[in-house]
């Protein structure tokens, strides 16, 4: 009992005569360092930034105020007044976020102030994967890293592998420059839901490079095939904003939403109609719909592209398609009729849950837009932005990363966590020559690193990012506005220093440089000084916005052949990216851990979602521990009997089950990716998330499901 509590007890006992004031602890006097100028307590300032939580590239605003922290200086505990970020909001200037922000975006703050963030560079002190590290100085860490790079480059530069994420931003450009300087092959994107299928399909169906944007705000009927655009797909804030507008933003018009997915996702919640597609049946559904549209004789503009699409759909057997996707043929025809009749329909083609045939499925669904004449028109599908090709070209692809990793003598990692998203890659990480991580946390993959050179948090460094989807040409950008909290260094400069150290220097691209290039490319005035003004204004605004994105379709479509699977396979398992954790990167934020999962209301853990039929066969109730076994692995997790799950389909959100990821995430729950082995999208190599056959077994291990709400049903229904 401390003093304060003592007074409470005494105060209570003695009739409350002694209270509060007596218990006040005199503030312990710890010396305060002389703060930097311009940090005034009680004064707020808002600074634009770029959200780093997902690839959407939302422009944000950070509220910065004075705060104090304790640090040790020359062996003395001192207080230091620092400028601290207090709150994140969307940047109203930014066309992607429009001033709004999603749950994960808000929680970016808890990455910046995460208690488990690395305080400085680390060197491995135990076997690979164990996660034991010792603090080292930047000099020795950099030297170690440089030596490893030097020897790897001189040995076989082809076996240098840089694992990253599929983003078109400053970092991607600098990684590309670094690898170019070394003469190494380009970086690989490793993750789940890397939008590889979407990008490839855009090329096949529309002839566009990049991720297309769907202008659902102006559509009257939205059919989404496999794209959980409200649950985190591509650009959750952009699509939620558009969704709101589609529903209630236009007087007298309420857009309709039909959603086809193998899971009752957030988009399905909000849909007027949900088509429960059998996992892997998305392609069949898209083809069936195409056939239905062809049968209806829909024709808008007899272009070559439309002709191609028509040919692709003409031979589809609707009944076979129906059998493969689990949606009755009559329903498919009904939806087709609705699409044909709508004044402004659009088909959102995506793969929220990547499968082996996702590229085909997305391409076929995209082709529906071609057939409907909804490409490059208002309320239809719009091309990706064309500005800042340096950044978009540098976006890593997932092609062949497994083979390259298996064969690597030097692995460098920034923004990827393969040990988590593809647990089968752990072996390769263990056997790789040297592993260098640029992570701010010891995560599953960094646990395998020989050296960790911790990066700044996205809120501490400058950024330029192309949004993953945007209705207009736009770029989000920011200059640093708070000093680094710990002894970290921005990976961009670390890469440049490493390259210089091995005698292959390159000039890293910085925010101002990138914006100057943007200025040059959009030709917004050529006189001297105009560029500076443009750059400063963009940094002040936190973004730059141009006209409508890109150009029209090239017409060069190469849809290729599609093949429908013969039938549906029973007892399937699929993983999906969770709303709150994304591909797992959000799991160390306590706010997100305590955020009820939309589907199961689970907190501090994620369950196996089992349909009521299967659950009653297994005798499983909410919270019972269930073992799921596939050919590739097994996991144990509490069950959640999901009333909306397709009978015979078990789903589990990705997010938990980290071997290492700080106090809030380590050793919590199970990683659903461990059931999936090396499954990948056949055309792009992107990590697939199912389906695989599983065997379920109820274990007598008590219950372990923490739910915010244990009631799935409203008793009695309160209709509002």
């Amino acid at each position: 009992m401390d003093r304060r509590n003592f007074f409470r007890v005494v105060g209570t006992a003695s009739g409350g005569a002694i209270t509060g004031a007596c218990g006040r602890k005199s503030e312990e006097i710890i010396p305060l360092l002389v703060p930097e100028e311009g940090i005034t307590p009680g004064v707020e300032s808002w600074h634009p930034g770029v959200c780093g939580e997902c690839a959407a590239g939302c422009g944000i605003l950070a509220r910065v105020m004075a705060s104090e922290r304790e640090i040790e200086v020359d062996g003395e505990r001192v207080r230091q007044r620092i400028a601290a970020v207090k709150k994140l909001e969307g940047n109203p200037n930014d066309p992607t976020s429009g001033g709004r922000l999603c749950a994960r975006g808000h929680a970016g703050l808890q990455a910046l102030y995460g208690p488990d963030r690395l305080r400085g560079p680390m060197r491995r002190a135990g076997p690979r994967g164990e996660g034991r590290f010792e603090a080292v100085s930047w000099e020795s860490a950099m030297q170690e890293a440089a030596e490893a790079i030097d020897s790897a480059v001189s040995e076989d530069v082809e076996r240098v592998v840089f694992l990253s994420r599929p983003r078109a931003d400053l970092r991607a450009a600098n990684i590309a420059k670094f690898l170019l300087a070394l003469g190494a092959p380009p970086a690989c994107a490793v993750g789940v839901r890397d939008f590889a299928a979407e990008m490839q399909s855009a090329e096949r169906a529309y002839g566009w490079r990049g991720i297309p944007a769907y202008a659902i705000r102006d559509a009257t009927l939205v059919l989404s095939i496999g794209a959980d655009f409200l649950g985190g797909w591509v650009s959750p804030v952009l699509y939620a904003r558009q969704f709101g507008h589609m529903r209630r933003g236009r007087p007298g018009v309420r857009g309709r939403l039909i959603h086809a997915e193998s899971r009752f996702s957030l988009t399905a919640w909000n849909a007027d109609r949900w088509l429960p597609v059998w996992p892997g049946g998305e392609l069949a559904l898209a083809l069936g719909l195409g056939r239905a549209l062809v049968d209806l004789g829909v024709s808008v503009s007899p272009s070559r592209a439309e002709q191609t699409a028509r040919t692709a759909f003409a031979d589809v057997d609707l009944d076979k398609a129906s059998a493969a996707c689990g949606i009755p043929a009559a329903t498919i025809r009904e939806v087709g009729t609705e699409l044909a009749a709508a004044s402004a329909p659009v088909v959102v083609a995506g793969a929220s849950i990547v499968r082996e045939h996702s590229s085909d499925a997305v391409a076929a669904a995209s082709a529906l837009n071609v057939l409907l004449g909804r490409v490059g028109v208002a309320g239809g599908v719009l091309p990706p932005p064309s500005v800042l090709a340096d950044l978009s070209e540098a976006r890593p692809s997932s092609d062949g990363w497994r083979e390259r990793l298996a064969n690597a003598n030097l692995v460098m990692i920034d923004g990827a966590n393969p040990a988590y998203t593809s647990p089968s890659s752990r072996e390769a990480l263990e056997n790789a020559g040297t592993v260098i991580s640029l992570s701010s946390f010891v995560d599953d993959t960094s646990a395998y690193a020989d050296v960790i050179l911790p990066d700044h948090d996205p809120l501490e460094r400058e950024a330029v990012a192309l949004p993953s989807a945007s209705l207009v040409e736009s770029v989000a950008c920011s200059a640093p506005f708070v000093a680094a909290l710990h002894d970290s260094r921005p990976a961009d400069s670390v890469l440049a220093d490493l390259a210089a150290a091995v005698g292959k220097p390159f000039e890293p691209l910085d925010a101002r440089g990138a914006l100057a290039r943007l200025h040059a490319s959009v030709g917004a005035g050529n006189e001297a000084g105009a560029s500076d003004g443009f750059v400063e204004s963009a940094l002040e605004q936190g973004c730059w916005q141009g006209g409508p994105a890109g150009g029209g379709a090239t017409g060069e479509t190469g849809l290729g052949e599609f093949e429908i699977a013969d039938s549906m396979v029973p007892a399937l398992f699929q993983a999906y990216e969770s709303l709150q954790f994304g591909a797992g990167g959000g799991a160390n934020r306590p706010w997100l851990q305590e955020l009820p999962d939309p589907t199961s209301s689970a907190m501090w853990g994620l369950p196996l979602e089992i349909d009521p039929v299967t659950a009653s066969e297994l005798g499983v109730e909410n919270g019972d521990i269930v073992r799921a076994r596939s050919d590739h692995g097994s996991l144990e997790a509490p069950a959640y009997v999901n009333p909306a799950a397709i009978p015979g389909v078990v789903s589990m959100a990705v997010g938990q089950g980290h071997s290492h990821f700080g106090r809030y995430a380590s050793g919590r729950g199970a990683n659903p990716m461990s059931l999936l082995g090396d499954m990948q999208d056949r055309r792009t190599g992107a990590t697939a998330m199912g389906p695989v056959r599983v065997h379920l077994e109820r274990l007598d291990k008590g219950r372990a499901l923490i739910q915010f709400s244990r009631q799935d049903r409203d008793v009695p229904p309160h209709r509002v």
Partner: protein
Amino acid sequence: MLLLLLAAAGALMAADQPLSFSHAAHIEKARMQCTDCHSGAKTRDNAGIPSIRRCMACHQFIATDRPEIGRLAAYWEKQREVPWLRVYGFSKDAAVQFRHAPHARAEIECARCHGDVASMTVAVPAVVHTMGTCVQCHRDNSASDDCVACHF
């Protein structure tokens, strides 16, 4: 009784300040304004305790031979703030959100809450800050006596 206690506590605090800073010397002799050091008092939430940086702006040149200034300079040498003890403040559990600016706008004199600081050497809690003081003044001036005017 409580007043006595508080006064005693105040005296103790005053004695404990790390430097025997004299408000009187600065206001009466040097003709400085409160806001010269407490720069937020009229415009911001916090009046602010001046940083040593501000002290040194003058005392690099002025009165450098005095022993107290020497001690001030010693702090500056070490790049440490003077560990002033707070004279006025609210306990955390009081959940008070006090803002100076609206009070300044309502033309409440500094002395109303802080006493005649101009004549003090080391500042002492001359005015007892209790909820009663606040409420009384608010009522006298027909300012809000809504709880949430201060507590949130």
